[in-house]
């Protein structure tokens, strides 16, 4: 929640002339954050399901470049959406009145009667129409069906849509084209259906996959559409499915429930029709937002009242702007009153901290703002896939060239032979024309491009994704979340990540605050940091009760914690347990801690706070609340204590509090020392102070403050000034330390990833202090690391700072230095501008750690884009909130943290995992495996096809370039669908060069895949070259073997197909064995695939040679089985030729394995050696000395890292002073300010039941 609130703050602080830009960014990001249904659609989402699109980038680009189109309604929010944020300073009036929800007159967001909706302001297309909804008269309303539909197909649309999708792929078009030209008579050398058939098979496999995926989507849709909503129809409450909710329905939503459609808030269980909503699904802000129903409806608390309600709601036509809503409600017998965004509850948001609300449905289904913001996810293609496509294009060129060469050679040959070779009847029938001959050759060589590659890849990736889903190590039991690959086409990309951009809250941290330590009167309390338990220090209790010299201070300290806050207690009816409601987790933690220690905050009334100190009730009158703001960095309350004294209690950042201390302080030095200590542990600290205020001083100040808080102009500033008057001469009581709990295993994961040369950048919307804190606690920053802090406020300053920093780096620039860069959103905005971009990037890349704080969601996406484009590196973004959606979609790979309530990020991500630490397994194991498997699979698929089809070319040389094929036509077309389909599958699914454990323990292994060493242009063409060599051997050796034709002792001779089948058999055997040679781990499935493929060909040969004349198919195969298998030459060749082919590959592999041993081979050997020793019953018996030595040896050889700053390098200039670990989260400038919010509560009163 801290993040969300900071963003708010940011947008307020921008200078006016720049406000629009920032605001647009924010809004659109928020808009972009909206999405598909709140439930996971458990599909492997290949870019098709409805999710959010990053509108923000387009918008902001336009705004930045100054191209503002007046007719573009998307720019409208510039003026309007800031309403909820800035309304407060203007109308902060101590009690909630009607004015509260009236829009701020300064903002162009005034209620206008609908009639002149297109009045003086720029005409907006969506204002030209309006919608009228009659309350309690659903039959009069026109309503869009309230349905969620993420599925792609239904029974009717499946075939056309599917075919359209498929034939958008080049490869499929190509093969379709081949199938078509095969229909031309006399052109095809391979018959008419030999391409169509495999193509059909492949399309069927794809169709099956699509159907499975779409079926899952249908089920997910049904789950949402069939959710239950409580609707008041007629005179009673009925439960209907979401899909049956129509406009004008009166619905009741209970706490924790999602809104089924866009609603107008009528009333709620809370005072003044207030309610909390969580909009993280829509805009990514995790702090709760207040919404308030209109005064005229706030008393509709019972069903009967609703039933008798008549009237209508007018509202603007549906649009996608989340923070914009104009409408009015016209109740019978009353005049129309305006409605604004404060009364609008959006579909996708969730009701929180509120018993229930009543609302009228206004927008349903596709008209909801959520749906209007949904578009399809950008299609992401992996690096490997792109490279593959380029190579396919090159191969296509090769194919055309080869065909041209053959066609020309054919003409030449025919020209020379036409008049002489009478048996070829050229005199009777002329040779076909050049074009047709060319087509013949294109058909002949079409399978140089592997027809099955696409579908094999799809299937393999699909199953790889399932393996990810199945991974037990990535299962997070507390939330019952298994990892989920939502797309399968990026598996190999996971193996190539160089940069990770991580969100902080919810990703690195749990967003749970724990009170860990405190320093009271110079004494530090708290258990040591390893303890996972809550704060518990008996010493403190002892000191408190034993009349210790500091006992009074301790008491005061605890009272302050229990009194000075804006928390609202709620007593659970059944258990009597008190639950604290707050938009600030820090405050909740402090109040919670006070309760634990016997100072229980029990009741809040508009004027007082009641606490129970060890069971004894004490009432503190709250005179004033001076709110927290990130400028003030403190919050304080003025209270009248039970003894009648007036006191000011303050908690805030140490820097702020120390400035205002009375001059003589007993413990200021020791407390400062403690603060430093806390900060070094990565704890968030607050200083606690108080001051006694004499009655007369307070009376005087009270007036000043009242004036300030009711002034029309500069209220904020005046309040601050007024606060300064009283917040001085403070007496320091001590300090608190709150732990922002990290997710499990975060530091370890960061370390492992850094060992794999993956750089982690933290991009957070949170404050700088918080971010630095977390940086320390998760080891991203270390104590001896230099920090560069950039928070310049203008473009010029930023540029200057960047240039200076860059110069400071000197030679070390571009290397990874032990320096941490911290930059805040404001400076980042300048740093990302065109002329600073390069410098910023240079500096950022020279730092070991980069933390960007207070960044907007859009900036997150921009940073990702910057690194992605400038570094040509593969990036991964990980986050949990909707504010991360932008970067998740911008990065090559987006990972969402799932299992929490806001599933937004998970929905737009490519992979969803339960915990940050699972990233290790996902990248180091699944990523690296997928990459190496798919690389092999792709290379091998090309290899096997080229191997077979280039043979056709060699055969052309001896048959006069006539286009005759050497093999039987159906054996060729089954090559890719039967005989050699299994080895690549086995390779793609089961190959591994060492176990998952070893991969995890040796992150250095990741570098192979990261650097793309296994699949690049060079490797590709080496494989192609190799396959050409193989094809030469595979054709010419059998040919020379049979050159005398006589193959049997009975004197019989063979024919062309006899040779062809020899060659074909050798090809199948060779490529299958080659697959074996490339396989590192032979599981039984691999054995099955390799040997099975070979056997399948022999079986096919035997069956196929005997089908004629039963089936009139391939008479030329008759007897082939008998004569081939009965021919000694065949068997001798079978022994010789594949081994001759593979001898080179084999010995090269051996040579490399011995001579140029790579890291992975070494690790592999060690692993195997270990396994063997375990098997032999003698686990390692090396002395520890040896291990240490080994570790040293390895760290110098295997894990050598990029150069660091030489010790002599110029010292990096000292960082600016940063406060000690201070960080605090609190909603600022919300719809209802905290100070007024708490005044509305009287927790002694019962809440309405709402029935």
């Amino acid at each position, binding site marked *: 929640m801290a993040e969300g609130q900071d963003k708010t703050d940011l947008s307020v602080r921008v200078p006016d002339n720049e406000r629009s830009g920032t605001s647009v960014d924010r809004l659109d990001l928020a808009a972009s954050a909206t999405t598909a249904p709140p439930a996971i659609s458990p599909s492997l989402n290949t870019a098709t399901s409805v999710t959010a699109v990053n509108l923000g980038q387009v918008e902001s680009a336009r705004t930045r470049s100054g191209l503002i189109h007046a007719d573009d309604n998307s720019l409208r929010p510039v003026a309007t959406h800031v309403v909820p944020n800035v309304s407060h300073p203007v109308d902060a009036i101590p009690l909630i009145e009607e004015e509260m929800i009236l829009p701020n007159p300064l903002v162009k967001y005034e209620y206008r009667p609908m009639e002149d909706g297109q009045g003086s302001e720029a005409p907006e297309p969506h204002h030209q129409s309006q919608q009228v909804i009659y309350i309690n008269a659903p039959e009069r309303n026109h309503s869009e069906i309230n349905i969620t539909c993420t599925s792609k197909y239904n029974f009717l649309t499946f075939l056309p849509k599917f075919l359209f999708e498929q034939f958008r792929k080049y490869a499929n078009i190509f093969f379709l084209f081949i199938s078509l030209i095969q229909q031309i008579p006399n052109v095809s050398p391979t018959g008419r259906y030999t391409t169509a058939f495999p193509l059909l098979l492949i399309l069927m496999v794809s169709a099956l996959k699509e159907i499975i995926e779409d079926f899952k989507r249908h089920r997910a849709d049904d789950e949402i559409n069939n959710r239950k909503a409580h609707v008041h129809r007629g005179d009673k409450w009925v439960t209907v499915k979401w899909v049956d909710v129509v406009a004008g329905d009166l619905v009741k939503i209970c*706490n924790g429930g999602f809104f089924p459609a866009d609603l107008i808030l009528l009333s709620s269980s809370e005072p003044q029709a207030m309610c909390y909503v969580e909009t993280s699904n829509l805009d990514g802000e*995790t702090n709760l937002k207040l919404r308030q129903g209109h005064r005229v409806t706030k008393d509709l608390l019972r069903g009967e009242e609703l039933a008798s309600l008549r009237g209508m709601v007018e509202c603007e036509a549906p649009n996608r702007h989340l923070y914009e809503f104009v409408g009015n409600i016209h109740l019978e017998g009353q005049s129309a009153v305006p409605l604004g965004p404060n009364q609008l509850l959006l579909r996708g948001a969730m009701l*929180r901290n509120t018993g229930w609300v009543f609302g009228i449905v206004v927008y349903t289904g596709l008209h909801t703002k959520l749906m209007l913001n949904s578009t399809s996810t950008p299609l992401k293609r992996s690096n490997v896939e792109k490279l593959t496509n380029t190579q396919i294009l090159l191969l296509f060129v090769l194919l055309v060239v080869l065909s041209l060469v053959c066609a020309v050679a054919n003409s030449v040959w025919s020209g020379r032979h036409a008049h*002489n070779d009478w048996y*070829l009847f050229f005199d*009777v*029938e002329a040779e076909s024309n050049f074009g047709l001959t060319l087509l*013949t050759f294109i058909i002949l060589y079409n399978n140089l491009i592997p027809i099955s590659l696409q579908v094999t890849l799809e299937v393999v990736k699909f199953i790889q994704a399932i393996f990810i889903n*199945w*991974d037990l190590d990535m*299962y997070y039991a507390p939330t019952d979340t298994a990892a989920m690959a939502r797309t399968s086409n990026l598996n190999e990309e996971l193996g190539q990540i160089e940069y990770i951009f991580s969100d902080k809250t919810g990703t690195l941290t749990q967003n749970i605050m724990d009170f860990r330590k405190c320093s009271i009167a110079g004494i530090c309390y708290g258990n040591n940091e390893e303890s996972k338990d809550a704060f518990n220090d008996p010493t403190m209790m002892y000191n408190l009760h034993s009349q210790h010299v500091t006992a009074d201070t301790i008491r005061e300290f605890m009272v302050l914690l229990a009194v000075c806050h804006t928390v609202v207690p709620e007593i659970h009816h059944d258990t009597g347990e008190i639950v*604290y409601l707050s*938009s600030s*987790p820090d405050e909740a*933690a402090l109040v*919670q801690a006070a309760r634990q220690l016997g100072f229980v905050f029990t009741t809040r009334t508009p004027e007082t706070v009641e606490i129970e100190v060890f069971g004894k009730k004490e009432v503190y009158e709250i005179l004033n609340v001076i709110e927290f703001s990130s400028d003030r960095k403190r919050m304080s309350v003025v209270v009248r204590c039970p003894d009648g004294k007036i006191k000011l209690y303050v908690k805030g950042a140490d820097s702020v509090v120390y400035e205002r201390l009375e001059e003589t302080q007993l413990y200021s030095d020791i407390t400062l020392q403690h603060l430093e200590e806390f900060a070094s542990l990565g704890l968030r600290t607050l200083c606690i102070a108080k001051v006694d205020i004499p009655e007369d001083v307070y009376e005087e100040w009270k007036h000043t403050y009242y004036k300030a808080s009711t002034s029309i102009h500069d209220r904020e500033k005046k309040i601050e000034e007024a606060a300064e008057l009283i917040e001085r001469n403070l007496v320091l009581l001590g300090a608190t330390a709150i732990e922002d709990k990290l997710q499990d295993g975060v530091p370890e994961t960061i*370390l492992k990833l850094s060992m794999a040369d993956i750089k982690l950048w933290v991009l957070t919307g949170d404050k700088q202090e918080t971010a630095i804190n977390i940086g320390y606690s998760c*080891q991203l920053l270390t104590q001896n690391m230099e920090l560069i802090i950039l928070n310049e406020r203008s473009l010029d300053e930023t540029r200057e700072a960047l240039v200076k920093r860059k110069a400071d780096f000197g030679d070390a620039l571009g290397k990874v230095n032990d320096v941490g860069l911290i930059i805040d959103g404001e400076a980042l905005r300048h740093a990302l501008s065109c002329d600073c971009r390069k410098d910023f990037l240079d500096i950022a890349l020279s730092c070991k750690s980069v933390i960007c704080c207070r960044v907007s969601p859009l900036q997150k996406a921009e940073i990702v884009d910057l690194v992605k484009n400038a570094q040509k590196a593969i990036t991964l973004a990980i986050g949990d909130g909707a504010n991360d959606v932008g970067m998740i979609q911008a990065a090559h790979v987006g990972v969402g943290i799932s299992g929490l309530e806001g599933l937004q990020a998970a929905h737009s991500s490519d992979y969803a995992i339960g915990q940050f630490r699972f990233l290790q397994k996902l990248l180091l194991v699944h990523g690296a495996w997928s990459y190496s498997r798919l690389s092999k699979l792709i290379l091998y698929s090309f290899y096997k096809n080229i191997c077979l089809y280039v043979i056709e070319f060699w055969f052309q040389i*001896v048959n006069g370039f*006539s286009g*005759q094929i050497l093999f039987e036509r159906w054996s060729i077309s089954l090559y890719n669908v039967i005989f050699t389909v299994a080895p690549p599958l086995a390779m793609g699914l089961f190959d*591994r060069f060492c176990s998952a454990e*070893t991969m995890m*323990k*040796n992150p*250095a292994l990741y570098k192979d895949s990261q650097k793309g060493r296994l699949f690049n242009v060079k490797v590709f063409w080496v494989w192609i070259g190799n396959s050409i060599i193989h094809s030469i051997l595979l054709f010419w050796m059998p040919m020379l*073997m049979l*050159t*005398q*034709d*006589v193959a049997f*002792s*009975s*004197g*019989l001779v063979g*024919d062309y197909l006899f040779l*062809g089948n020899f060659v074909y058999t050798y090809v199948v055997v060779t490529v299958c064995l080659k697959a074996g040679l490339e396989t590192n*781990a*032979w599981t*039984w499935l691999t054995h099955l695939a390799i040997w099975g493929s070979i056997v399948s060909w022999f079986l096919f040969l035997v069956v196929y040679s005997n089908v*004629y*004349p039963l089936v*009139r198919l391939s008479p030329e195969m*008759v*007897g082939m089985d*008998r004569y081939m298998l009965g021919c000694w030459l065949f068997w*001798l060749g079978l022994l010789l030729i594949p081994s001759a082919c593979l*001898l080179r590959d084999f010995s090269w592999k*051996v*040579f490399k394995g*011995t*001579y140029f041993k790579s890291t992975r*081979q070494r*690790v592999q050997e*060690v692993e195997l050696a270990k396994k063997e020793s375990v098997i032999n019953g003698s686990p390692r018996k090396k002395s520890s000395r040896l291990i240490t030595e*080994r*570790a040293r040896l*390895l*760290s110098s050889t*295997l894990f050598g890292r990029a150069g660091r700053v030489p010790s002599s390098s110029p010292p990096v200039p000292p960082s600016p002073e940063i406060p000690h670990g201070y960080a605090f989260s609190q909603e600022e400038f919300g719809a209802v300010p905290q100070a007024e919010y708490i005044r509305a509560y009287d927790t002694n009163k019962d809440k309405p039941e709402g029935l």
Partner: protein
Amino acid sequence: MATNGNGDISQDSVEEKPKSRKPKDTKFKQQKLPAWQPILTANTVLPALFAIGIAFIPLGVALLVTSNNIKELVYDYTHCNSSTTSGTCAEFFQNTSQTGETCTCVVTLTLDEDFTGSVYMYYGLTNFYQNHRRYVRSRDDNQLHGDVISYSDLNDDCDPYKTVSDNGTTMGIAPCGAIANSLFNDTFALVYQGSPNEAVGLLNTGIAWVSDKNVKFGNPSDWQKSTYTKPPNWKIPVWNLSLTEESNNGYKNEDLIVWMRTSALPTFRKLYRRINHNGTTFSNGLPKGDYQVTISYHYPVTAFEGTKSIILTTTSWLGGKNPFLGIAYLVVGSLCIVLGVVFLVIHLKWGKRVTNFVTSMEGDPSDLPLGRDRVLSNS
């Protein structure tokens, strides 16, 4: 989310999920299937390389010896002198355009040594592209199988030898297509010049694949002689190919069957006759000496610069004489030995270092980055 105190409220709305999403812990699903992981290094493959080398070289030698023991005689009679007209038969055919004419050559073949065992007689053609696409396709297998079909149903690929039109009547060609039309039609008679001269018995059956003769080729129940005619280049219709031997007549004629198996290369030989070894003189093969061959010379090959030969050969279990396989085995075997030696040298020279390295790393790979893990636990 907003507070850490309201967890119990929100739990009310969380549905109970009875079914856990926990993945199953099976070896397959966790990708822990046991696997054989061969490691190829010099020392591990040395035995294999030497073994292959040692196996292949003797095998190669054996194959070479086998091939060399085969006796083979090739006689190119393309330009044989005609015994009926002046000049060579090739010239004779160049000068007369009549295909019906016969030219006869009488040539003498000399066997320098005894051809023991079964001897086979082949004709060989060169520069004859039986593997040309338009040639290979030009046949109708249904017709050859003996199906009774009307000539219009013949395979279009047979064109231009599918039908002939004569005075307005269209007749189908039996067998249709270019392959059949260009059937090799030279005939040979072989006489041993001994004392006395003795004609060598030539068997015209058993020269085709059994499967072809029994399965693929068959005679139709009705020759449809009214609608079918002989191919243009033929002298006699197919149903008269062997009037004496019904089993060798029509499509089942083995000369035709042999010809119909189109060769892989433009230089090829096809089995013409088996030598009949039933008599006393030739029971052990063909004795050395002179043989007179009377060639009925019909087939024109000079037009396409081809040659015709007559080949007499014995066979081994490997078929005809072909040293290639033996040589290939020797080469591959030697390569294996050479590679083995190279790797042995590498192993002796470098292997020690490598092995030391490996043994020094033996143990748990998890130890490797130990240093860092320790650093971590401190913080």
